[in-house]
């Protein structure tokens, strides 16, 4: 008889797929690295140089911060000792329909969590709640240790890429980024907007109206818009929707470059596209966490089989 996974998966099931049982156990503390971080003094703040130093005063990344030159997740976690995302028993109901069921989740700074799930699993609802676009019906959410309710400044730490581009098609690429940069209070908004356009390879098209862009270009501009204020948390909701193979590969390359520098939560139903970016995966079925784990992610086929089995067997409902 299979032993139930603490988060709804099955030991035997995953063991049969060739994974190590002891390493796949869901660890609510997030492993040794995270434990060390948890004991790190909260008052720690870096003092020299760095690329996210222009972030305006918003609390966790409060006061004029000068990040150290070192990069990578270790440095990121050291300067952000609290969890980037912490949810407890999140619920969301739309009338009689329960879109989310007691979702408890922790994402450390610098971690890339990929959320898989079939259509209607609650992925978009979860991202909207994490982005503070929607209030949960029950449960708590903390971002960088802060309660987002009534904390407008906290949204400066979040970048969102959704199914939709969030771009005004009647404005040029530069105008869109300029507007976003100014609304986020980015110093030297014009310089930052131009820099982001160059990074995503749209510099030559900066003065073109967005309505003339292809889907791939639109998606690149969308990510430039989401990153224009250099947020430490990036939420990506089905970002591959509508992209052809080439555009999806380009987009994956772009995301690959962003990994480690910031916390990423990506939702997708495509194992092929989501897995290469994942530090940890979570499978959402019928609004509940059906599986969560960080091991064996280099075997795409094994994870694919696991996903199919978890989705077929249904969510572990609390």
């Amino acid at each position: 008889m299979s032993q139930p996974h603490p988060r709804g998966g099955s030991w035997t099931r995953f063991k049969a797929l060739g994974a190590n049982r002891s390493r796949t156990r869901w660890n609510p503390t997030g492993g040794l690295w995270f434990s060390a971080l948890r004991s790190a003094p909260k008052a720690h703040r870096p003092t020299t140089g760095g690329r996210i130093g222009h972030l305006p005063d918003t609390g966790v990344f409060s006061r004029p911060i000068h990040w150290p030159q070192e990069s990578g997740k270790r440095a990121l976690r050291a300067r952000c000792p609290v969890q980037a995302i912490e949810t407890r028993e999140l619920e969301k109901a739309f009338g009689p329909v329960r879109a989310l069921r007691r979702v408890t989740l922790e994402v450390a700074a610098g971690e890339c969590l990929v959320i898989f799930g079939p259509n209607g699993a609650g992925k978009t609802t979860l991202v909207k709640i994490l982005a503070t676009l929607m209030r949960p019906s029950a449960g708590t959410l903390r971002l960088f240790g802060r309660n987002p309710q009534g904390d407008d400044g906290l949204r400066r730490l979040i970048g969102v890429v959704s199914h939709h581009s969030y771009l005004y098609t009647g404005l040029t690429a530069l105008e869109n980024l300029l507007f976003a940069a100014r609304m986020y209070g980015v110093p030297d908004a014009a310089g930052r907007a131009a820099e982001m356009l160059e990074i995503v390879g749209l510099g030559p098209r900066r003065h073109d109206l967005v309505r003339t862009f292809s889907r791939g270009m639109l998606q690149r501009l969308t990510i430039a818009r989401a990153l224009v204020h250099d947020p430490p948390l990036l939420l990506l909701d089905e970002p591959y929707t509508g992209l052809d193979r080439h555009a999806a590969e380009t987009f994956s390359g772009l995301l690959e470059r962003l990994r480690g520098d910031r916390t990423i939560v990506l939702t997708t139903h495509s194992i092929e596209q989501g897995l290469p970016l994942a530090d940890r995966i979570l499978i959402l079925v019928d609004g509940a966490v059906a599986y969560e784990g960080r091991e064996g992610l280099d075997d795409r086929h094994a994870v694919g089989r696991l996903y199919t089995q978890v989705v077929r067997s249904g969510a572990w409902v609390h």
Partner: protein
Amino acid sequence: MGALSAVRLLVWKDLLLELRTKEILTAMAVFALLAAVVFNFAFSPSPAQAAALLPGMLWVTLAFAATLGLSRSFVLEREQQCLEALRLFPVDRSLIYLGKAAANLLFLLLVAVLILPAMAALSGIALGSRLLPLAAVLLLGGVGLVAVGTIFSAMSVHTRIREVLLPVLLFPIASPVLIAGVKATAGILAGWPLRAVLPGLRILAAFDLVFVVLGYLLFEFLLEE
């Protein structure tokens, strides 16, 4: 970022979009001019009648033109879910209301600037020294119309019948603005002293204050799904 800077940016964005798309202002201006011409032919007022008819014609035209503009105001934001993007900015979400209302007011006042002289010319009325008090009435009335209209426009944007729903919701609530606006305009055109027009202006100012504050307080909840 300060509240004023955020509102200014939102207005800048709406003006830039309007400059490119020409969707809102063109529709409002063409409708208003056509209405002015139709009213003139329908009533063919003598110079004596014109002063009595013009206030009604002016405010009815402005109210319908405002409805046209307001119904489009949030449609552009709905495209690509830009309204969601606005809610992601680290500013008080109620400032979106103030920004949209300010842009709507600007469009409405531009239309008023266009049709007031046109209607006056068609009716043979010389505005002359009455321009300043008329501008005050139009400003106060305009603020009232867009304060209520922006709330209802945001409420109705997610419905399929928004073009029908908006005037149905707007006109009953905005009727004090229209009545007070017509009365004050008529008084000014008839050459009444300022103290005789003041009660109308006070009603308009009170209405503006109530609905701007109400819109500011309620807007964040209206945007929630």
